[in-house]
């Protein structure tokens, strides 16, 4: 199982902060497509920066069961 975290407007538009995907292996791009099928309103996920296990990652990266994937919208702290 792969955990996927959504934040800020992604979370609000999905109405959920965490999604669980039953898969052993997936690329981040694959996860993104999967989420867009579930939540077509999440157009902003296309430009969100992916992170795997709390570190920024590339879309081609392969994610395994047990990993935590996050989609990071443009940040605005400070």
């Amino acid at each position, binding site marked *: 199982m792969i955990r996927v*975290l959504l*934040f*800020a*407007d992604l*979370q*609000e538009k999905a109405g959920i902060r965490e999604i669980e995907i039953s898969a052993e292996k997936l690329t981040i791009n694959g996860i993104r497509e999967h989420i867009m099928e579930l939540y077509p309103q999440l157009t902003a996920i296309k430009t969100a*920066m992916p*992170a795997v296990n*709390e*570190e*920024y*990652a*590339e879309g081609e990266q392969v994610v395994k069961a047990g990993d935590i994937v*996050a989609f*990071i*919208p*443009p*940040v*605005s*702290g*400070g």
Partner: protein
Amino acid sequence: MAETSNFLITETVIDIQEVVNKVTDRNAGAINTFIGTVRELTKGKKTLYLKYDAYVPMAEKKLAQIGDEIQKDFPEAKVAITHRIGELAISDIAVVIAVSTPHRADAFTASRYAIERIKEIVPIWKKEHWEDGEEWIGDQLEKVAYPSGKPEEGDLKS
């Protein structure tokens, strides 16, 4: 454990002195502190309050990374950063950065670097609430996020 770290996300009021204490050092002659507060007016629009969200464990890691980046340039620097999340009123403190260095010029440079990097790489988001609406603030107003340790060529001009 988290309470003693120099890089914290908190849901409670930030005590400036507490952040400064973390960088106080016998060999520091200068401490620069940057305090980000909630401003009422932005581009003529009146903010009622803000809400901050964060990916807490990753945000704390990225704050620590900023501290590491500063120590690469200034090995004697000590850095502490606390960022508050949740609902904040006008004039509330959102972030406190403290940097101590032996000499003052470096403390200014490093503190300025820290706030710019927070706005680039730390997964924290601000939602502004106005009288007539609300919006998560992203790169329509601020900078874009950088996945790598350093901003890449061209990023700074965007």
